[in-house]
């Protein structure tokens, strides 16, 4: 229960996205059952949105799966953080917790782990957070699907812009150093330059270019500061 309570503010933020995902599903070419099944089985907000965009653009299946993979790669960072907290748990608990690993639950449980050292019952807290997020996501998808049926012209209301604006709000906080700026600028320019590529391959190419440039930049800076330190010591 504590976990559900701690996740509540984040859930409020997830409600509009669940609903918008539901309303956009059919116009993008995903059936009602498909939309519900995706929320129940895949349970990954950002990538579900992106897949709608790819479906609407007629992207091929392998491209969609590869894009989902790249978009969800960030979860491996969350998992790496949580490994010390799940090591003592049986495998079936870890499977359940992995399935429920979202941006929101990670944020909620991280602050719980920071506040309390005792992790013996932390997996119940995690479960509470996960169940609240999951129930909310599936319910909001269903509401969205129903609203989409009732108001077919809802797609003309510009709700698709909600996704762009959400992602803008997620990207800006990353822009704290030069390598991040380089990464985002390259990804942006490449996304426009490659927009005409078949199967929406441009998205993957643009993302990979951004990552490569950001990473090279960062490693160059690290090497430089190492050398500076060495020079300072020699003096």
């Amino acid at each position: 229960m504590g976990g559900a309570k701690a996740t509540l503010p984040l859930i409020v933020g997830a409600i509009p996205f669940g609903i918008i995902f539901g309303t956009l599903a059919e116009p993008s070419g995903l059936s009602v059952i498909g939309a519900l099944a995706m929320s129940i089985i895949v349970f990954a907000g950002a990538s579900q949105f992106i897949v709608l965009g790819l479906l609407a653009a007629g992207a091929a299946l392998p491209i969609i799966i590869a894009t989902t993979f790249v978009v969800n790669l960030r979860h491996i960072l969350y998992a790496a953080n949580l490994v010390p907290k799940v090591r003592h748990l049986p495998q079936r608990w870890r499977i359940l917790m992995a399935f429920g690993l979202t941006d929101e639950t990670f944020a909620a449980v991280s602050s719980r782990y920071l506040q309390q050292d005792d992790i013996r019952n932390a997996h119940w807290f995690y479960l509470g957070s996960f169940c609240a997020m999951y129930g909310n996501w599936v319910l909001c998808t269903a509401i969205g699907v129903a609203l989409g049926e009732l108001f077919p012209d809802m797609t003309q209301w510009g709700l698709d812009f909600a996704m762009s604006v959400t992602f803008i709000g997620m990207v800006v906080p990353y822009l704290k150093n030069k390598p991040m700026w380089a990464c985002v600028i390259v990804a942006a320019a490449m996304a426009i330059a490659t927009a005409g590529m078949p199967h929406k391959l441009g998205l993957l190419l643009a993302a990979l270019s951004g990552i490569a440039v950001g990473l090279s930049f960062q490693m160059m800076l690290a090497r430089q500061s190492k050398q500076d330190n060495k020079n300072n010591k020699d003096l």
Partner: protein
Amino acid sequence: MNEALLIAGMFIVTFSVRYVLFAVAGRVHFPAWLSTGLGFVPPAVLTAIIMPAVLMPQGQLWVSPTNPWLLASLIAVITAFIRKDLLTTIVVGMLAFSLFRFGFGL
């Protein structure tokens, strides 16, 4: 598009990414370059999604002060820099978009 295949494929890649480290629980360590590189994944992917949606909302490049997607995005970027709060950015961005699109009929 076969939806069952689509959902199964998405489930497999998503769940694998979330589970692989829990499964081995700390017996592997990422080399430094890999964990640094992963840190660039979210902004790069999200930017690559945003750009065409905002600059080519109707299929062709549309860089103009009459493009409501572009205008509202600029306002959202400024809002996000001022207030680091996601919900504020979303609300302000959506209000700006509705105003440009339906208020001014752009």
